[in-house]
């Protein structure tokens, strides 16, 4: 803090005069300066903002227009060629392949995303606790190894992992029977859990290790073991970090296509996969594609607008994942 305090001017009229004088002197200069630097900038900013929003807006408008109109006129002529309908939505929810329609894929997306968000979080917070608050030989080496696993692109792991799921063998030695026989979502849950761990452990470790040692020590003196400390102290204290990462992981899994293409086939495919497929097979049915795309981006947008702060934090933290 500065040691110099402003001089007290006791008389209110003097103070007023002074203030107005200041204003009168500075005001014109300030205004011109602000105008010069910001008018062009504001226009440019507006232009970029519009440019960035128009594509989404066009999709949104088109998804409500009748199929015939979408096929023959641009969405910007909405007022000349008026007509709004919900038919596209009811139609696209029935669209898909022989095994699955988009409504089913929406359910699949939910059924894949929720466990694939929670499971890695719980496992990672256990590991993060051990790395932060249990001393053991080789701790740093092991932690750096886990951290370094982030550099492995998913592409390196996909095919062998798929083989492991179908044959259950590691380096040719059979360990378990096939998991893929079970069907269902288990493969894609497990795959997403595995791929989330390096980043999750690293991020949560940063937060878990910032808990003051006194707090942990006090609990230990009171007779709590590691199990209780983790459950009663560490988990509640790191909730904000866990929430940020949960949102990031939720969106990541919801928006993922690559892992879904490999591990979620046929009747358990999520929306991204089915939409990519519909784009390939019915690429010119724009009334369906626009409605389908809007359904798929609805959930992320809701999350985005309702939990913005956590969302930005989570996305920034996990931006290199993949």
């Amino acid at each position, binding site marked *: 803090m500065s040691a110099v305090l402003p001089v007290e001017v006791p008389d209110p009229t003097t103070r007023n005069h002074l203030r107005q004088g200041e204003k009168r002197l500075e005001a014109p200069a300030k205004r011109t300066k602000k105008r010069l630097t910001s008018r062009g900038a504001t226009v440019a900013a507006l232009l970029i903002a519009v440019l960035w929003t128009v594509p989404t807006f066009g999709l949104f408008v088109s998804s409500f227009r009748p199929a015939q109109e979408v096929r023959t006129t641009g969405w910007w002529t909405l007022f000349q060629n008026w007509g709004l309908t919900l038919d596209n939505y009811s139609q696209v929810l029935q669209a898909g392949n022989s095994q699955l329609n988009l409504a089913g894929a929406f359910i699949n997306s939910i059924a894949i995303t929720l466990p694939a968000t929670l499971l890695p979080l719980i496992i990672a917070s*256990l590991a993060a606790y051990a790395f932060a608050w249990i001393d053991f030989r080789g701790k740093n080496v092991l932690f750096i190894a886990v951290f370094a696993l982030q550099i492995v692109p998913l592409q390196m792991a996909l*095919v062998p992992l798929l083989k492991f799921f179908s044959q259950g063998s590691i380096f040719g030695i059979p360990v378990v029977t096939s998991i893929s026989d079970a069907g*269902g979502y288990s493969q894609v849950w497990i795959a997403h859990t595995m791929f989330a761990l390096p980043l999750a452990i690293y991020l949560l470790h940063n937060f878990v290790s910032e808990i003051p040692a006194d707090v942990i020590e006090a609990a230990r003196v009171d007779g709590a073991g590691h199990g209780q400390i983790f459950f009663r102290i560490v988990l509640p204290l790191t909730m904000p970090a866990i929430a940020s990462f949960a949102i990031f992981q939720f969106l990541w899994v*919801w928006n993922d296509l690559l892992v879904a293409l490999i591990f979620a086939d046929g009747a358990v495919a999520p929306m991204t996969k089915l939409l990519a497929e519909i*784009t*390939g097979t019915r*690429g010119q049915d724009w009334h369906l594609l626009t409605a389908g795309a809007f359904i798929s*981006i609805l959930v992320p947008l809701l999350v985005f607008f309702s939990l913005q702060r956590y969302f930005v934090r989570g996305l920034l933290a996990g931006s290199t994942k993949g």
Partner: protein
Amino acid sequence: MSAFLSWLAGLPALAQVPIIIFAFVALVGAILFFVEIAPRKGTLYTVIRLAVCVLAPMLILLAAGSYWWAAAAAAVLGGVFFIVDYRSRVGAGYLFQLFGFLSPAILLLMIGLVIPTIQTTVQAFMNSRGTAFIGFDNFIWVFTQPEAIRTVLNTIVWVLIAPLVSTIAGLAYAVFIDKSRGEKYFKIMVFMPMAISFVGASIIWRFVYTARPASQNQIGLLNQVVVWFGGQPVDFLANEPWNTVFLIIVLIWVQTGFAMVVLSAAIKGVPAEQLEAAELDGTNPWQKFTNVTVPGIRSALIVVLTTISIASLKVFDIVRTMTAGANDTSVIANEMYTQFKNFEQGRSAAFAVILFLLVLPIVIYNARQIQKQREIR
């Protein structure tokens, strides 16, 4: 577990979610319970520890549908672990706790990332069925086939254009809206695409790019603009080499928001004294920007550039959804998947390894920069 998983797969989709989560939480609860009582002294607790050490690995393997001999081996290993733990210098039960916390993560990481990475690396030197060692043939194939070379070149074009343009656009936007009225809403508008999946973004942009014959009304916005300016409609996604650029625009559209948010925060961190000092020295706004602001946000700029570079190297969804690699737009990640689908596992693995080698230096550099930034703060 196979029996459990098959039973689970037979249930309605949304019923599976609470069941798997509940089962999992129960499992973790059991781990925490045993960890909690592990360090306690007395015969009873020792017996409990022994029972858990021997039975837990065996039961887990049996539940996962394993073979009897594997489960028996796991039980023996568990017994050995109990003895090691019992005679541990830091006290019985210590290793037991450590193992309870770490083993789920380490086990999954081994199976899911470490072992597959090794296998893919080996696979890259094997033939398409993985039966014979063929040396560098897969890599030679990649760098001699015109199409495969094109794939690698396209990826390089992605890395050269996307990070640079999105960073510049993000930086310009962050500067323009800095301290302006409604800054928050300006930010939301450009950041919003980050929430949208690449598949969704691809459909949005395919719609912008659609072309209709010149005799009809255009329904794609971009072609309408072309027509308004008196041009002929263009099929943007078919004409190479420019189609790759039009795909890159989608990634730029998504990533600019990321660049803008990070850089905006960095700009607000530039000391006001430096800016004022520059103003007193009579600099114009542009000089102030290049000589004070940019050096002030240098590390944030590097993080943004490298992060988007990594994203563009790994880009897959956009290419897959918009063109599926047709018309010479393929990239490494897409080709890796295509070769895998064509049962060319060796070549697929070779592409994965090339991708890994390309990403590796950037990721390491990026991690170092983030570390540095954290130290400064």
